[in-house]
């Protein structure tokens, strides 16, 4: 493999990994607070369509990203009210949110079909971003770097800040956290809103970076991969990063090997590889999972009612 090709492959992996990484980091915070939100795919679609529409009208993709975060966070508020205030079942509410996001984004996006907008540009000078060698460092979309920064940020927040500690405490034992006076519902509301904003940002990657356009179901199921990734990573930010890049690598190498003329396997087998790989890695990790650190938040998916 030539050096140029290697650089291209690395860039391909980073591109395929980033939207899943960002959405998964949001979901990780949500799950750490003890809530399971299966609506990621729907929120990503809402983010994608909002980002595109705002970018078209304002000419600013950056503004589009911000709007995507806002819109997706608003949609996650529906989920938060239902599951937190009304203690509805989280699995069902999350699924409903995905159906809702798919439908609403298709309705709202109808006027934007068939047009394009400015791609979210590089933050580095063109000379650096387009240099055949240096592009491996400077040629990525700003969201790629943001994904890395967010990984560190989420780790730092959960491991090193007081609020992060409280959030984890809420996820591990809501009754106990409540009894020492932590605002369980408030923390979870904020976590869900953060998760929504991250899903929206991840969605904006599709409509502003990968393919600057809008079409129905643009994210094509990536939101589900993001949810899988959180479990795959045993709720650890660094592992989410590793998992996202691994997933990006499986997708990129699948296509690269096909593009290089390697066709010993049926295309359907290669297409199912990312999913099979996820199952295998989940099994391997679970089999070796012994330490308390790698466990799911104790209250995950369980409704909390401030009683007593």
């Amino acid at each position, binding site marked *: 493999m030539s050096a140029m090709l290697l650089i291209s492959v690395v860039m391909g992996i980073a591109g395929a990994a980033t939207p899943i990484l960002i959405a998964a980091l949001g979901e990780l915070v949500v799950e750490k607070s003890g809530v399971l939100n299966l609506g990621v795919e729907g929120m990503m679609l809402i983010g994608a369509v909002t980002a595109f529409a705002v970018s078209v009208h304002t000419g600013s993709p950056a503004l589009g990203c911000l709007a995507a975060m806002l819109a997706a966070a608003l949609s996650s508020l529906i989920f938060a009210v239902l599951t937190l205030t009304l203690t509805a079942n989280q699995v069902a509410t999350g699924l409903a949110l995905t159906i809702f996001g798919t439908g609403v984004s298709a309705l709202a996006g109808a006027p934007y*079909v*068939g047009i394009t907008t400015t791609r979210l540009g590089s933050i580095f000078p063109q000379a650096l971003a387009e240099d055949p060698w240096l592009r491996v460092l400077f040629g990525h979309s700003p969201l790629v770097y943001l994904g890395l920064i967010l990984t560190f940020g989420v780790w730092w927040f959960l491991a090193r800040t007081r609020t992060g500690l409280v959030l984890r405490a809420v996820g591990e034992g809501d009754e106990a956290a409540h009894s020492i006076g932590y605002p369980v519902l408030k923390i979870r509301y904020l976590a869900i809103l953060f998760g929504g904003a991250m899903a929206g940002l991840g969605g904006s990657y599709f409509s502003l970076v990968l393919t600057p356009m809008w079409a*129905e179901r643009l994210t094509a199921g990536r939101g589900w991969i993001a949810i899988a990734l959180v479990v795959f990573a045993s709720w650890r930010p660094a592992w989410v990063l590793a998992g996202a890049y691994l997933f990006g690598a499986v997708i990129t190498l699948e*296509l690269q090997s096909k*593009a290089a003329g390697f066709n010993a396997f049926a295309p359907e087998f290669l*297409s199912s590889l990312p999913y099979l790989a996820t199952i295998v890695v989940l099994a391997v990790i679970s089999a070796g999972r012994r330490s308390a650190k790698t466990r799911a938040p104790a209250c995950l998916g369980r409704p909390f009612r401030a009683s007593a």
Partner: protein
Amino acid sequence: MFEITRRRLLTTAGSLATVSAFGLPARAQGKDKVKAAFVYVGPVGDYGYSFAHDQGRKFLEEKLGDKVETSFVENVAEGPDAERVIRQLAQGGNDVVFATSFGFMNPTLKVAKQFPDVKFEHATGYMTAPNMAAYNSRFYQGRAVLGTIAGMMSKSGKGGYVASFPIPEVVMGIDAFTLAARKVNPNFTTQVVWVSSWYDPAKEADAAKALLDQGVDVITQHTDSPAPLQAAEQRGAIAFGQAWDMSSFAPNAHMTAIVDHWGPYYVQEVQKLLDGTWESHDVWLGMQEDVLEMAPFNPKMPDDVKAAAQKIVDETKAGTYEIFTGPIKDQKGELKAKDGERIPDADLLKLDWYVEGVNA
């Protein structure tokens, strides 16, 4: 919500196995107004295959004005769902129902037998009945134009093909593209990447990028989203639109596009109903009938390439150019068509082998 469930298996087929059903042939009887309904497999917002059919419906409304009333149902899954929708449309007083995806064939046939007074038109299939016609487009004619442009403009002599599923129509397109490209550059090769989906923008874009990384400098596609075009635009390669003029997505990369121009056919069929002259038929139309058009050539295309591409279009329209004319060898070098011999339509419609120069 889960994208993978509803993909049309757009296919093409022809006139060989005509299935006759009972039900009397329609009596010739004119109408003042025709109610026409359309069934689409994707959303009209796909900006690809279903979008193109809906543009045909709008063309029909525009041309015939208040002599026609149209409606459509989008996102219809092939199988029992399609049967239900088609039956509902037949019961709803429509004079003709256009079922626009291959997978609607058996459902359409079933309903056609139950409603002998309603006319049915099915796209890209091979079954007909006294009140059910089949129509299809020779998409491969456009592929020959794309191949000619690719062969002339590619510096590396390598083209990349982002493809969905290896069904006859897709195979036909790959072969026509490669045959045409090798006529102008005998060393041209086509690398195919199967993405196993009709619509997955992220995967289509990544596939195009992978092909570009491997040294191809022309991207063409048989999937529905403009994502591969946008990837080519970003890398400075050339590419072609699918089903509709997609130049707005890639003003520099987009050389031309195969435009599915169903409108004139829809007008013709509805006019026949108005006149009372409709009869069941099985047609495989192409550039000659204006069902297939090339989008305007990109001004950046060199003049000699424009001229060569236009020549293919003109000769195809005149009936003097047919890409599937021998000598044609398959991947193994075996001669499939002798010099001057034309592969018959019947064989094309079930094509499952690749010509020399294809790596699939």
